[in-house]
């Protein structure tokens, strides 16, 4: 594939509706490597750019299971195997007493999995990103909505892509330097 000095082409919109509409059109136009940026979550947007399912729930499930098992295993190993001792005449394996910690460990691991999993999948932290090279992108965290077509998209071509984007009636278009 051809090397290009630019990272992608970015169009700025005023409202979530415009962005969603634009995103749909772009996707339908056959662009796959696109992304959209908004100051708040917009349910329809992911669909619009053809992002359908994410892996976070699976990660959380795995985390939870690990927490649950390790929690109980820890208590069983300590109380029955490595340090067996008569506490108040209770049996070594006093399972009802072990439930609480098992539960807490489950929650803890699942929670950690959720956050860390989300960050990892999102590739964060990433303090530097080409999109920040666009001065107006600062408004992406305020009240502006951006659509992005990456230069790695096979259909990408500085001229045609710009023209295509203009067709979406954005407030402005900027080239994102790599």
């Amino acid at each position: 594939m051809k090397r290009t000095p630019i990272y992608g082409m970015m169009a700025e919109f005023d409202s979530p509706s415009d962005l969603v509409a634009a995103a749909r059109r772009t996707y339908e136009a056959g662009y796959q490597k696109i992304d959209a940026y908004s100051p708040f979550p917009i349910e329809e947007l992911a669909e619009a750019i053809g992002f359908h399912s994410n892996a976070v729930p699976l990660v959380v499930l795995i985390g939870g299971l690990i927490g649950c098992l390790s929690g109980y295993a820890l208590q069983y190993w300590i109380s029955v195997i490595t340090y067996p001792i008569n506490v108040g005449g209770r049996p070594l394996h006093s399972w009802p007493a072990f439930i609480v910690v098992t539960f807490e460990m489950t929650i803890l691991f699942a929670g950690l999995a959720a956050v860390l999993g989300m960050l990892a999948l999102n590739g964060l932290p990433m303090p530097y990103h080409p999109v920040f090279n666009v001065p107006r992108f600062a408004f992406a965290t305020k009240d502006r909505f951006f659509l992005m077509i990456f230069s790695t998209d096979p259909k990408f071509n500085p001229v045609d892509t710009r023209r295509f984007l203009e067709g979406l009636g954005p407030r402005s278009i900027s080239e994102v330097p790599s």
Partner: protein
Amino acid sequence: MKMTSSNHNSPSIDVCPSKKNKLDLETARAHLAETQGPEYWRSLEELAGSPEFQEMLHREFPKGASEWLDSVSRRGFLKLMGASLAMAGMTACTKQPLEPIVPYVRQPEEVIPGRPMFYASAFTLSGYASPILVESQLYRPTKIEGNEQHPASLGGTDIFAQASILGMYDPDRSQTITYLGDVRTWGDFLNAIHGPLIAQKAVQGAGIRILTQTVSSPTLADQLRSLLKIYPQAKWHVYEPINRDNVLEGAKLAFGQPVETQYKLENADVILSLDADFLYAGFPGFTRYARDFAKRRDPDAGNMNRLYAVESTMSSTGAKADHRLPLPATQIETLARALASQLSVASGVGGLQGKMAEHLAGVARDLQAHRGSSVVIAGDHQPPVVHALAHAMNQALGNVGRTVVYTDPVDANPINQTESLKDLVADMRSGKVDLLIIMGVNPVYDSPADLAFADALKNSKIPLRVHAGPYQDETAELCHWHINEAHYLEAWGDTRAYDGTVSIVQPLIAPLYGGKSFYELTALVAGSEATGHEIVQAYWQKQHPGSDFDAFWRRSLHNGWIEGTAFEPKQVKPTTSNFSAPRHTDFSDPRNTDQKNLEINFRRDPSIYDGRFANNGWLQELPKPMTKMTWDSPVLIAPALAERMSLKSEDVVELELNGKKLTAPVWVQAGHPDNSVTVFLGYGRRRAGRAGTGAGFDMYSLRNSATPWSVTGVAIRKTGATYKLASTQGYQSMETPDGGSRPLVRSASLEEYHKEPNFAREEEPPAALTLYPGYDYKKEPYAWGMAIDMNACVGCNNCIVACQSENNIAVVGKEQVVRGRHMHWLRVDTYYQGDRANPRGHFQPVPCMHCENAPCEVVCPVGATVHSTEGLNDMVYNRCVGTRYCSNNCPYKVRRFNFLLFQDWETPQYKMMRNPDVTVRSRGVMEKCTYCVQRINEHRIDAEREDRKIGDGELQTACQQSCPAKAIIFGNINNPNSKVSKLKANARNYSLLADLNTRPRTTYLAEIRNPNPELER
């Protein structure tokens, strides 16, 4: 042997013995001598490099007085410094400090480092000896036990004997000879007294006065008598504030001669106590009497005795009585006369009406019905005539020779001590005295106020005043010379038990501060410089001439007494007619007497006796049997009186007795006779030491020589002020304020018991009730358990002190007790039941229950308290982080917590005193009764080495060993034949709060009373 900078002598010198290998000290002496007396251990201290010790050696008067009463004192902060060290000792991840290890130069043959030895000796209180065995760790006495073979002990001791070990190590003890407060040597004193003695020779010692305590020591008596031969004009005065003048005069009145009265309670079916508290320490022969009494309290044996008590203040004897009659002391004589005439022995008054008469008639009939097996005991503080009447009644009831035996007096110089002191004061004032030697007495503090002894001592120009005693006390202050007395554990001597048996007192350690014994002092005055050892041995050489003396001497030392020295019964005839006229005959109606004219009773303090033990922290903090009071001496008043005067406990009142005033707090005492108050002597010391100085109120200031025990005419006035009292048991009833009641102490009358033997049993929840399967202890060779017979227990507190001594339990001081932080592992709960004017008393010793389903263990987050395979509830101090959850969850509240650094980590004496077998606990850890696990381990190890099992009774806990009544039985409950198993099988056996399903290993035998059926209704 080593002294470490750490909390106690490390494991290197511990171990309890498998068998008490008693040996005489002869050989030991040799080794001690070899290392120049005191140097022997001092050198070790110096090695330990403790500057405090040096400082202490040279300081003149104890510093930091009343430290225990004040939490932010100088030493309080010293303790802080100790804390760091404490942590080092107790935390897991700290580097061990490098410690020195110091072997002997020449090791005595019989010494096995790490194994204690036991020596027989005797502790003497007011002339009466308690035979003891002293546990010695490499020549450091660490624990007092009873002498099982001695007839006067049978293994039991009393609180004073138990606590005397602390007395010896007391850092506030006088540590040097002084002249007007400056340090002097024995030699200096010798020179100083030499001249005056020469001068006295000329006048046959007309100016010499010697004031001693009650002397029962044959040797000392002999010395003093021979001294009086050298100085025929000299006089020997005897005084003790808690004297037995009335007993003596009573005997003279009855028989015309002084005799000792002994009781054989094992033969007594009916006992009548006329204000005699014979079931508490301080009463001559208490340990033996308690045992004999308890032996006859077994309801299953079929020969249970019956005790009637008439008393002027609530006492443990009254609490144990089957019938108790509270009566002002001054009215007991009247009652005695009435009873005597009922028994037709005396021409007294018959004039009794109402319930009192019925009651008395019933008692009389009961006594009559048990001729020869009954006994009437009169209290020491009752007037002579009551004693005479008691003698007459015993005679008439044919008890003499059966339950009552008369012998020669134990007191070697049976004179009226109050008179004796009066004479002395008279001589002092009239300038007849040139050389006054006071031995062990503290008259400036404790003599009757009207004699103004202090004044006489100060203002009469006695040229040479010598005081010898254990403390730089109030009297020492007013004398020229002070000789620091050697403690009885430091010096040779001999003494007599209540039955006359002589014990040799042998030293366990060279005098810590190089003190001198009275024997040596007396010898010096008599012109000899013999050592105590020579003096005592020489005397007995005379008594036991012949070639076998060495054998005799060794045997006597080994057994702890000298054969054939017990007094022979004496045949004396009482003269029943010559009773002086009654003092007053009316039983005045309580309600119409006013608060201006109440009766006041002066009594010895249950804990610190006459004040001589004021600086003994163990005794100061020992809850008094009836009030559970510590560190103080409130005025006891009856509930009725309190109501009339609208007084509550801790209200301060002003007492006024013939002009003298004194303010003190009151304590409302259930069962105290109305229109009468009781005060306790021994408090308000000015120069007792850091513990005793300033504690309580000095009741001696109200006491008169004419009426030393009780007198009517005291006025009390409410001041409106209040004063915090440190009682360890705030609530003394099993009835809760909501009207409910809790079956903590279960009791029944003998009849009820025979009808329903299982009355005490309570259904324990079935084991199947829980989700968890139980733990099987049956497979273990040992399962430790304890049974406490509340019928036998007389509430004498001995177990508490024994436990404190054995387990290095800290003293916390009044302020901390007030906050509810006393540390006793074993407590004795006192409950009152029924009519507050005359309730039943119950004693319930409460150690750790060692529950099989221990609630404390389950909640400990770090497993610092868990179960051993033998069923012990182990407490692991070094694992404890101090959440106190275990204590919260302990329904018996037997756990104790080191809220602050309670242990003294600096004072070298205390380091030497502690039991090296028991960890000294630091700040922030929980502690509690361990069933003396150190003893269990040592016995198990010895047994295993000899490839056998621990025999029943071979292993005794500290509380059990010295319990005079043998109320506490400990042993292996997996052995069906062990004593404890048998007791637990008894119908009376029940466990406390059984419905909680804690399955305690400590159980109780319900209390059975034997009231007179005819008086019941």
